[in-house]
């Protein structure tokens, strides 16, 4: 069976699975890296925006036909994820665009259709909606409707998403669910700096258009040992980051750290929780989650986006289809409330550790 439950350790490890094929066009490079990795295992403590910055540097270095563009990326970007790129690669490869998201993505699709790697930045995920038509109608369907003659696989759209503590309506949204409804694109969300670097490099080198959401709360907050060399993490593979036997928790992005705290608290009450990082939202790794639910019999999903129509609904429905007779309790979803993302009420809106802990207990005691 191709699914692999991987152990998560906080030591230096390049987690490239040898059993499954990487969905990238650079497999030769990966093998070379695996050999190299034996020799150079240097790593540095980096935060999320530095890890992403490193990934972008590597991407531009290794492919001369890759470009980074977006609003204000030239001086480093509002979150400093693109620092040093213009200085190193020049204004022809790293450049600012005017304030037009629809234009940015449309332009990126065209660039990618000519075989280049276009790495477009949307300044905040809340502003991605003018580009929604381009992503859904153009990018996602290009290969399909041209009978594989054309594609915009080189397109990667990066956008900071998620709550940041005081963002209010338009600097905190989590729009991943809208994009998960579109066959033809991939949606990837990293949980930490080390993951982000590997996943971003995989997304950029993946032959499909990818939307890469970066949890902005973690830009400075998350610090981790990140290997300095070029490495890629496989897409569409979920990772079990904490093993348990009583209940499976599934999440992504910044929410995982909250869920981990809830798991630790639940442990004190004798509930053993298994925590899975989905990483890629579409196409998502159903096997890993199913295997885990078959083991525990209970599922809880948590995300910041509003609960109705959020991606948790898809996970819940799929798992119920596959594991109905095994489930001991209804699938729980601890998510944002069904309101616009509030300003002052953010602590009420968010799926906090206590809400998750409460749901864990009520699911286990069903």
């Amino acid at each position, binding site marked *: 069976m191709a699914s692999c439950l991987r152990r998560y350790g906080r030591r230096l490890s390049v987690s490239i699975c040898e059993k499954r094929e990487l969905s990238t066009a650079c497999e030769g490079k990966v093998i070379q890296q695996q050999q190299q990795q034996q020799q150079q295992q240097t790593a540095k403590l980096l935060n999320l925006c530095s890890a992403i910055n490193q990934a972008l540097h590597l991407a531009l270095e290794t492919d001369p036909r890759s470009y980074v563009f977006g609003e204000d990326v030239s*001086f480093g970007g509002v979150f400093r994820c693109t620092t040093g790129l213009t200085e190193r690669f020049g204004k022809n490869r790293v450049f600012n665009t005017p*304030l037009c998201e629809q234009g940015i993505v449309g332009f990126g699709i065209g660039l990618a259709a000519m075989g280049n790697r276009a790495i477009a930045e949307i300044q905040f995920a809340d502003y991605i909606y*003018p580009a929604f038509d381009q992503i859904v109608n153009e990018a996602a369907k290009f290969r399909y409707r041209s009978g594989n003659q054309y594609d915009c696989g080189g397109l990667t759209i990066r956008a900071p998403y998620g709550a940041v503590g005081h963002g209010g309506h338009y600097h905190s949204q989590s729009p991943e669910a809208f994009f998960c409804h579109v066959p033809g694109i991939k949606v990837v969300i990293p949980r930490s700096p080390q993951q982000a670097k590997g996943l971003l490099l995989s997304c950029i080198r993946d032959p499909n258009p990818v939307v890469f959401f970066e949890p902005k709360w973690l830009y400075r907050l998350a610090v981790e040992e990140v290997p300095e060399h070029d490495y890629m993490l496989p897409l569409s593979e979920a990772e079990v980051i904490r093993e348990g036997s009583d209940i499976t928790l599934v999440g992504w992005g910044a929410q995982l750290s909250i869920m981990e705290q809830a798991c630790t608290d639940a442990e004190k009450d004798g509930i053993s929780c298994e925590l899975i990082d989905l990483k890629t939202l579409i196409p998502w790794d159903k096997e890993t989650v199913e295997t885990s639910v078959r083991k525990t019999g209970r599922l809880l999903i948590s995300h910041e986006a509003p609960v*109705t129509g959020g991606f948790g609904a898809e996970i819940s429905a799929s798992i119920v289809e596959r594991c109905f007779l095994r489930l001991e309790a209804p699938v729980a979803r601890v998510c944002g*409330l069904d309101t616009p993302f509030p*300003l002052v*009420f953010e602590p009420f809106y968010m799926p906090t550790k206590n*809400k998750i802990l*409460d749901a864990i207990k009520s699911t286990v005691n069903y």
Partner: protein
Amino acid sequence: MALAHLTSSSRSNLLKPLATVLSYTDSFRRPISTSTDPLTIETSVPFTSHKCEPPSRSVETTPQELISFFRDMATMRRMEIAADSLYKAKLIRGFCHLYDGQEAVAVGMEAAITKKDCIITAYRDHCTFVGRGGTLLEVFSELMGRQAGCSNGKGGSMHFYRKDAGFYGGHGIVGAQVPLGCGLAFAQKYSKGETVTFALYGDGAANQGQLFEALNISALWDLPVILICENNHYGMGTAEWRASKSPAYYKRGDYVPGLKVDGMDALAVKQACKFAKEHVLRNGPIILEMDTYRYHGHSMSDPGSTYRTRDEISGVRQERDPIERIRKVILAHDLATEKELKDFEKEIRKEVDQAIAQAKESPMPEPSELFANVYVKGLGTEAFGADRKEVRAVLP
């Protein structure tokens, strides 16, 4: 309020060397601030026009109006600076986009229109809200997220609204307010009330596709909308020449006439808006480009000095500051003494401090407000509160 020195200076020759060229027709000096005798002042910079006849440089005004310009702009300036300190003290959270430097646009526009005309703008809306009649208490409460705020504390800095004064906000998404503004104008045309809409946007938003869509429709249907581009030359960190092929935003309308106005001169703004209002009621949309400048960065998280030099900022402050200009005009015409103007400023400072103190006492909104006004009559969907067992709200 009689001025002691008026009697001694009744001679008519009071032309002092100033940056602005002045001429006035009234040689009688009346008590300041209540006088409504007409005064004609010429703007220092002529209007540049595109596909229309520019209005005259001579602006009709009154001493009362000039004094009120000074007071209003000084209030706005003081308010924005106070908001800056509150943000740094973490009493205001989230995003805060300050308008200081651009006050002349808000004040000049108000002088030319009525409260029945509609204004809609982007997120740099604190001063526009005050111009529409908003109180300082409402401003500071909303900024701090309290109940006394104009949007009940639920909107924050970017979402100020005032229905009874036709102020439609207050929008966070760049450029999204322009098609909305054209829609307002459409409704106004239907109601035949001889009212117009002012849709404001920035030089950054001028490159949004929806602007051109809205412009086309407005011109096609002859809507009474005035599109005002507040060109402060920087779209966040990007200078206009980096973002726009043609930084002549007043010409961007192509088939829509345009006017370029010195946005740091409240009188020029008033003249242009008056002209624009008459124009659109007859001929359909017009674009006004206000050449203005913001002293602060884009928002409180932007120092404002990584993409422009401090010399540039202080240069503009010295040469073109809107409040200083009005002060010079007032003093040149002997409408008030320096001391009186300084007293105004002290009063304003006190008012602002009082408003802040009052706002701090206003409570945060009730938790039930979180679910209020999502829909009018909803699906009755359920939502969980902080504790899943206890609070299971059915959305109203």
